[in-house]
């Protein structure tokens, strides 16, 4: 197809504003997916995405649209996640596109992630097409929201299409707008090949498959391709697109978004953000790629069964192909044995990775409570980066500790500004700014320690604003704080995997809350188990898990065997997920206890 009839675009929006539903309708209207194969959120192919109703991975499809001008157009549509943790997925999608459809919920209006995604799109020089979704809701106020978009973002909304992605209302108009308002890719088919690798995954038969956006030139089977950053060269075996099924093509042309298979076995060779060129006529420069994301949150991941360490290593390597922001390196814990210190962009990212490892690789894992990276300045004048509380040097060797701060933009209805400010203060937030956005909403700007954000800020924010607030954050720098390491002792022994670094003034409350939470989570055993929290050698909180006295099924007659066995099977499954530390059996959840406790 002629390059001027190609449109590469993505859909960006705040979480739950209807990206994936709009993608569904577009696939339907263009007959890309047959009716009988259609299901909701078809591009969310991971079970995890479908269950949670969120998009985690970007997903690219090719479709053909027969426009009202009588011509066929080739669309490459990239669905993107909306949650702040997956911003890196969004930025990768954007680099592969020329335009973006901005979906805004006509009832909720512009939210924090709407702004964040728009700024990303503008950075990438994308043409943005605003669309108002959910206009069929009784609470929809399309005119108010249009004005909001114009005021806050500065986009002309006079021609913004008002749609209902759910019912399909006006989605046909969006397709026409894509044809007329979004640009076609600029590249040159005859120029040396430059293809941006924006994603990759591992296929057990074909090796590593790279997803590329071809910016110049072509790629076809038998081409010898070179990854410009790593220098690795491979012969292409197959190229193709997704519709969303995989379809093999003769070649990928400039402007195409598709996949390249070249029997790539070495995981290290394929880096997302790298440029592929053809070795016989190489491009002189790689494409600019995009900002590499650095992990903000670290935790330890350990197999419950120590013998599966190698399986975990392999699983992490494969997952990383598909998740460039994931970092990991080996670490050991006295309590948990051999595992990995893993870095994530946020808590949801951590949660998703853990769940994917458990499901897709059938691993049973223990995750330790998350930590940020602390800068520990020692008395000998050196600085150490610490992402694992148990690695914190002795107090006498520490001069001071710095922790990462983030700038938080919080959009909140006026009536919740008070409670929200209280919450930010309580989380050691430092007021920066408060702006009136419109008649009903304000934008609060705070500097906050990242450790407080990952702790329970999001849940607390939701409960104190009834879910009406949205927020976005970005790293702003390191600051000195008064921090201490808090240890947890079970049965008199420090369990290294339960240590945390806490703000000194919070230590007493957190220590108490942690002890109580652990008491609830750790099942009774045949002996009494003291649970203590300590700073240095000083015990700051204590409670006891009483000894188990009775665990027996009262009635057990002939007819009961099946039922009673089920009960025992359940106890057995629970036991399989426990880790023996010293003489105490600790369930997996206990290692994450710090996240679910209430210390108010």
């Amino acid at each position, binding site marked *: 197809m002629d390059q001027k009839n190609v449109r590469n675009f993505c859909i960006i929006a705040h979480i739950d504003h209807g990206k994936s539903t709009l993608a569904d309708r577009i696939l339907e209207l263009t007959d890309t997916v047959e009716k009988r194969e259609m299901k909701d959120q078809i591009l969310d192919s991971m079970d995890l995405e479908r269950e949670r109703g969120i998009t985690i991975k970007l997903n690219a499809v090719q479709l053909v649209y027969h426009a009202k001008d009588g011509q066929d157009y080739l669309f490459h549509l990239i669905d993107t996640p909306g949650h702040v943790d997956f911003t890196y997925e969004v930025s990768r999608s954007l680099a592969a596109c020329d335009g973006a459809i901005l979906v805004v919920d006509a009832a909720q209006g512009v939210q924090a992630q709407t702004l964040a995604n728009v700024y990303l799109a503008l950075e990438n020089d994308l043409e943005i097409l605003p669309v108002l979704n959910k206009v069929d809701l009784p609470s929809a106020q399309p005119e108010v929201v249009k004005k909001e978009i114009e005021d806050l973002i500065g986009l002309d909304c006079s021609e913004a299409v008002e749609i209902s992605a759910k019912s399909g209302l006006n989605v046909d108009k969006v397709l026409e707008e894509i044809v007329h308002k979004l640009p076609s890719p600029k590249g040159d088919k005859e120029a040396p090949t430059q293809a941006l690798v924006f994603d990759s995954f591992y296929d057990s038969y074909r090796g590593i498959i790279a997803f590329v956006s071809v910016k110049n030139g072509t790629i076809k089977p038998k081409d010898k391709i070179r990854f410009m950053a790593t220098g690795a060269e491979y012969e292409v075996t197959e190229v193709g697109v997704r519709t969303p099924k995989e379809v093999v093509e003769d070649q990928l042309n400039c402007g195409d978004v598709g996949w390249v298979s070249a029997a790539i076995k070495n995981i290290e060779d394929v880096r997302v953000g790298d440029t592929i060129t053809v070795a016989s006529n190489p491009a002189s420069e790689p494409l600019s790629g995009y900002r590499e994301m650095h992990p903000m949150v670290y935790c330890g991941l350990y197999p419950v069964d120590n013998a599966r360490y190698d399986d975990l290593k392999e699983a992490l390597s494969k997952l990383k192909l598909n998740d460039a922001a994931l970092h990991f390196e080996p670490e050991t814990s006295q309590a948990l044995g051999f595992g990995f210190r893993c870095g994530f962009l946020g808590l949801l990212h951590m949660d998703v990775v853990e769940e994917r490892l458990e499901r897709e690789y059938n691993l049973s894992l223990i995750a330790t409570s998350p930590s940020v990276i602390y800068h520990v300045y020692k008395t000998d004048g050196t600085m150490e980066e610490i992402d694992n509380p148990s690695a914190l040097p002795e107090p006498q060797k520490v001069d001071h500790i710095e922790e990462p701060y983030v700038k938080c933009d919080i959009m909140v209805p006026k009536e919740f500004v008070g409670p929200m400010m209280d919450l930010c203060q309580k989380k050691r937030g430092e007021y920066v700014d408060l702006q009136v956005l419109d008649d009903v909403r304000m934008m609060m700007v705070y500097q906050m320690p990242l450790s407080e954000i990952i702790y329970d800020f999001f849940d607390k924010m939701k409960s104190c604003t009834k879910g009406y607030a949205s927020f976005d954050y970005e790293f702003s720098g390191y600051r000195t704080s008064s921090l201490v390491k808090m240890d947890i002792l079970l049965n008199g022994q420090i369990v290294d995997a339960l240590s945390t670094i806490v703000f000194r003034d919070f230590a007493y409350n957190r220590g108490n809350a942690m002890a109580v939470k652990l008491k609830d989570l750790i099942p*009774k055993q*045949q002996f009494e188990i003291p649970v203590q929290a300590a700073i240095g050698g000083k015990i700051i909180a204590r409670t006891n898990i*009483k000894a*188990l*006295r*009775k*665990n*027996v*099924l*009262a*009635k*057990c*007659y*002939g*007819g*009961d*065997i*099946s039922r*009673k*066995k089920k*009960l*025992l*099977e359940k*106890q*057995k499954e629970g*036991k*399989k997920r426990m880790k023996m530390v010293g003489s105490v059996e600790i369930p997996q959840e206990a290692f994450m206890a710090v996240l679910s406790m209430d210390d108010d």
Partner: protein
Amino acid sequence: MVPSAYVHIPFCDSICAYCDFVRIQKNEQFFSLWKEKLIQEIQEYKISNLHTLYFGGGTPSVLSLDDFTSIRNCFPKDIDEFTVECNPESLDEEKLASYVSLGVNRISLGVQSFNDDLLKVCRRRHTSNQAKKVIRWIQESGIHNFSVDLIFGLPDQTMEDVKRDIFTFLSLDIPHLSIYSLQIEENSIFGKTGVEPCDPDLEADMFEYITKTLEAAGYIHYEISSFCKPGYYSKHNLAYWQDKDFYGFGCGASGRLDGIRYDNTTSLKKYCLKGPCSTYIPEPLSERGMDAIMMALRTKFGLNIREWNLKYQNDFKNHYATVLDMYREYFCFEGECIYLNDAGLEILNTILVDFMMIE
């Protein structure tokens, strides 16, 4: 020969708050069909010899004498132990005399408590006095082998309440007691109305008191929930606990033939239309061996290791060496048998789970 048979009578006059067994308020529409299908089911096996027979429910004593007789007559005349579960409100002297003439030689009476307030909480329809009267009738009927059921750990029940129940029990000279801690089953009225379970420490204290007091009074604690005077073991229940086959007849019954367990349909409608519709539960030998351990360790007789090794083609002491070591302070050995001491019985589930962890 299959030594034992259980007949499930799924009808009740009213539904008790703790119960989640297959039971239904008696209704005429299904009754005659049910009886016909039950008799058919039993007769198919042409049983000529039976060691123990047990009518449970539900409430077998809600059956009319005619119905009872026609079901009973499907079995041989001479049965070593023939138990009928009864509720105080549906048993009278006349019925008792008829039971005796039909060969019933053991009654299991659902008393549950001698405290009228707690009986109301359980939605029982009898009073403490009624229960005591029926116990006297049983004793006068010539049935000297009988048992009562009691429950402890009921909502708001205190330690004093338990002591009074045990005291009353002891004053009535009853040879057998089955005493259960309340389990809040999801499908019972207690479960559906969100009744809180008893504090585990209080429950443990109650049970400790019960065991101590009954043993001091000369009762043998021969199974976790069962106490008896010497010689008054429930032979029928021992068949379950000692890994024997047994027939299970009727809607909602379970049985075991040639070591393979089966469950009959729990739908009365289905039973009336199509009969038992038994589902067989195929288990590998190792699994059946585990069932045997699970049941045998409930009793003070324990598990006969030599027999188990032969039957399940395994080496018990070797296979479970880690578990036996882990809980060595709870296990006792006597001859070929292994059994748990009192403290071990209390945490039987914890121990069984560790047995199950060994594949």
